[in-house]
């Protein structure tokens, strides 16, 4: 509820101002202590309103109070403005119409009162609207945040699925290769081998020649097949540490030093994607907001974890809004049971640590 505090403060200020106006009217009037009783009662209702949450129709209390006290203290008519304000504050601004009629019908009517009530209803409905909007905004924000949370979850599941698909593809490829090798290459090579063996035994010149010819054909077919098979395997994109190095190299005008330790084969492709995202995020940040002259990227891979640390020597610290990019990285790291922290106290420092589970590939 703290977000609304500013509005509450404003509302309280306005309520007090209204009471002060009443108090002033009392000071310039000739009314006796009844006015004080009246103001005191209004004050109590106000404090109850601040202290406890009371029903929406509670502005009726003020209306009743005003009507009761008007005979003793004519200016109590002005107290109706408080009721109008409270009504407007809960969205019932139309109450001004019956009240205005009452005011006009009342003998001691004057135009200031109408102005005052109008002003009050304006302030009240304005506050009501902005509080409503604020609540709405907060709600949307919370919803968005939640959705993002869920979205990340889905993303992670997708990544997981991708990982599985990748494994399946790998398997399929392996099958294809082995089938290819077995069905064609193997077949041809075996044929060629048998032909050569037979060639050694054969004495007939013609027969030998045809066997040799056969071997030639089989071998040349095998070469083509082999080339074809291998050609199918060539990776289209870089992956792993090469990819990170490529990113660093591409960020040319920035001075980035990259070093890594450990066995890069321990890191799964899922992790590489995450690390890549971190690196990109950091580089964007450094190039956009930082006045750094040097950035250091360290990648450590041990038996149990992968750690990416990016540290620059910038001095700008005030830019500390965690953007949505960082937010989603944070969530992703959490999904991978790792951690992701950003610190701007002493240069921009990004550390991402992911655990390595030894899974059977």
């Amino acid at each position: 509820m703290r977000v609304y505090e500013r509005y509450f403060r404003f509302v309280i200020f306005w309520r007090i101002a209204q009471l002060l106006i009443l108090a002033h009217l009392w000071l310039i009037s000739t009314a006796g202590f009844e006015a004080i009783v009246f103001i005191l009662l209004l004050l109590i209702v106000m404090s109850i309103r601040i202290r406890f949450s009371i029903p929406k129709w509670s502005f009726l209390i003020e209306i009743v109070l005003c009507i009761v006290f008007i005979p003793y203290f004519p200016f109590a008519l002005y107290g109706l403005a408080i009721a109008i304000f409270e009504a407007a504050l809960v969205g019932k601004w139309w109450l001004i119409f019956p009240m205005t009629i009452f005011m006009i019908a009342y003998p001691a009517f004057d135009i200031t009162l109408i102005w005052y009530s109008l002003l009050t209803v304006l302030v009240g409905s304005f506050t009501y609207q902005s509080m409503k909007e604020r609540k709405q905004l907060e709600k949307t924000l919370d919803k968005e945040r939640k959705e993002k949370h869920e979205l990340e979850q889905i993303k992670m599941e997708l990544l997981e699925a991708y990982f599985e698909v990748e494994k399946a593809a790998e398997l399929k490829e392996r099958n294809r290769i082995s089938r290819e090798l077995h069905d064609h290459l193997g077949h041809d090579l075996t044929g060629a081998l048998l032909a050569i063996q037979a060639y050694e035994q054969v004495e007939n010149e013609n027969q030998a020649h045809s066997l040799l010819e056969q071997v030639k054909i089989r071998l040349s077919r095998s070469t083509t097949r082999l080339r074809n098979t291998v050609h199918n395997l060539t990776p289209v994109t870089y992956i792993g540490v090469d990819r990170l190095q490529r990113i660093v190299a591409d960020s040319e005008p920035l001075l980035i030093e990259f070093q890594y330790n450990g066995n890069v084969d321990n890191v799964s492709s899922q992790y590489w994607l995450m690390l890549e995202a971190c690196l990109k995020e950091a580089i964007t940040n450094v190039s956009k907001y930082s006045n750094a002259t040097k950035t250091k990227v360290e990648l450590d891979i041990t038996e149990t974890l992968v750690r990416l640390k990016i540290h620059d020597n910038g001095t700008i610290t005030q830019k500390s809004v965690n953007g949505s990019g960082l937010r989603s990285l944070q969530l992703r790291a959490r999904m991978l049971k790792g951690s992701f922290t950003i610190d701007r106290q002493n240069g921009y420092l990004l550390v991402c640590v992911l655990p390595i589970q030894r899974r059977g590939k």
Partner: protein
Amino acid sequence: MIASLNGIVKRYDSKLVLDYIDLDINEGQIIGLLGPNGAGKSTLIRCLTGMETVNQGNVTLFGDGKKPFQNKNKEKIGLVTQEISIFPELTAQENANFFAGIYGLKGEVRKRRVAEALAFVGLAEHTKGRAQNFSGGMQRRLNIACSLVHDPKFLIMDEPTVGIDPQSRNHILQAVKKLQRNGTTILYTTHYMEEVETIASEVVILDKGQIITRGTVQDLIRNIQHEERIKVEVSHPEEVSLESIQALPDVKQVIKDGNQILVVSSANSGHLDRILTIIKEDSGVVGINVEKANLEDVFLTLTGRTLRDGGSA
């Protein structure tokens, strides 16, 4: 399950203090809540005890997620505050009596519990002494006793050892262990990692409102560590070939400082043997120092900062 926090978000104005905290506390544990100043430890405790309403998420105490802060549950919780929250003008016994009273203890039970609690923290001989005449450590202990009189199942200790002498600190740590043996679950907040290493059965490390890791001390130290440092003191430093050490895989840095050689390499590289072999070829080895990893290193690995002041390493 003693307590659990589920997706807790806490904002002060627009500042996010707790960011989706999920934490389960199981019976019989001592959970060490570790983190630099301003990590959100105290806020976490305030949310856990109902002192503060949360912006999102829910708290469950003793399996009760609907009304976690009803009196039935509050009776089972004890809180040792960061400040010494006792009445200096009252005696130790009266202080304990007061807190026993507000937890609804009466008559014989109260008398017995007060005596037990005071004896437990080693104040049995000072029951009649006024708290204002106590030393700092004694006041701390009385502060703890006051949180123990109602025999809580779940004890929350918010930096209970700030600013006291080592002896009292040891006394307190021993007491905490004893409590755990008696079946109390303890959440122990501190920014002294040594304390957590000694007593905690599980560590939760908090930084910037997030739980960055949790696990047993051993597991964390074993698994979350990205480099190790080996210091070798040699007799003839000038003859040692630094290049051949540097050439070992995973070695990050080799520094020669006087007759000491410091080798920084990735964690668990198993280089000790190899390094020694290389050095022994050229020089005598006078001493070896392999820096033992601790929770500080864990924090350093995870955040790149030091635990004590949160500064850059």
